[in-house]
């Protein structure tokens, strides 16, 4: 049996605690541990090719991979960071050189690279992204598309200084 426990005492206690956490969050936004670094995902580094060239577009394009790169702790956007992107697409398999390309983050720490349409492979429509430049700890991501028909995918990095 469940009984409704919405009496005045509970309401005050709950409201009070919400108020306390909310206000303290506003007063000390990046306090405590701050923004936690992104962990590499399982299988993220599969078929990675170190040193893939920076490109304006991978292949003929049609699909957009985008995201942001921020610093762990204070969350500051990281400018000019190199992110490598690769996937199994309509134009090539995951390990093939033409399926790989890198791009740099802009002044807001954002990146965006056009690439061919991602095709489900090994049972999931997914892409791969890597930060592997040395200044921060290496991170490999492997985001999965909600639908194989999607024409864009996002992945976000929070990097931890080495």
């Amino acid at each position, binding site marked *: 049996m469940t009984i409704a426990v919405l009496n005045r005492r509970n309401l005050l206690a709950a409201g009070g605690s919400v108020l306390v956490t909310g206000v303290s969050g506003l007063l000390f936004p990046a306090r405590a541990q701050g923004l936690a670094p992104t962990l590499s*995902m*399982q299988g993220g580094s599969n*078929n990675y090719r170190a040193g893939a060239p920076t490109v304006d577009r991978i292949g003929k394009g049609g699909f957009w991979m985008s995201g942001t790169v921020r610093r762990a702790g204070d969350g500051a956007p990281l400018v000019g960071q190199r992110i490598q992107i690769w996937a199994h*697409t*309509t134009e090539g*398999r995951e390990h093939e050189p033409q399926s790989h390309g890198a791009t740099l983050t802009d002044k807001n720490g954002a990146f965006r690279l056009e690439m061919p349409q991602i095709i489900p492979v090994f049972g999931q429509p997914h892409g791969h992204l890597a930060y592997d430049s040395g200044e921060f700890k290496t991170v490999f991501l492997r985001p999965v598309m909600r639908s194989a028909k999607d024409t864009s995918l996002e992945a976000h990095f929070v990097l931890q200084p080495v």
Partner: protein
Amino acid sequence: MILIWLALAAAVCVPIAAAAASPLLAWRDPVYILACFSGIVALGLMLVQPLLIAGYLPGLAAYRGRRTHLWTGGALVVAVVIHVGGLWITSPPDMIDALLFSSPTPFSPWGVIAMWAIFSVALFAALRRRLGVRPRTWRIGHTLLAIVIVVGSVVHGILIEGTMETISKAVLCALVLAATIKVMTDLKVWRRRAKLREESIARQ
């Protein structure tokens, strides 16, 4: 009589035909395609296996059904080896992840467990005479492994987003499950043989 064979052929061939029409095939190379289809064939063989052992297939009752069950079992092992081998050639790191249970895809461990269960049954079947395994031990062992194989394979198949068409895949998986449950209850695999014999004598 012929209807049973027609229905079985449809249950196995329709999903294969539907997968052959998959648009994904355009972007896959022959080894990968071979690996995909041997997985589908393996699922189809899994529907035939219980029907054979129970003698439900016309013309393949009793002894002949059991002999064929052995051969189909061997074919199942070959299909799984081609499936895993083909995927290994296609993307070694992804296959290694799957085999080591460190894959990001939720369906991989189900398939790997089913694979080991298939290999175990085959090995067990090949060695049971030599090892002197009692028939009842063999029957119960094989049944338990068969449950692992069927459940593992069905979950593996359903969770994959690949060449198989969704509805025909779901129907084939449901049929495999249904055939397994039906045969296991009909054969009363958990009973002692002596008791079964008594019952069948009593029925006559």
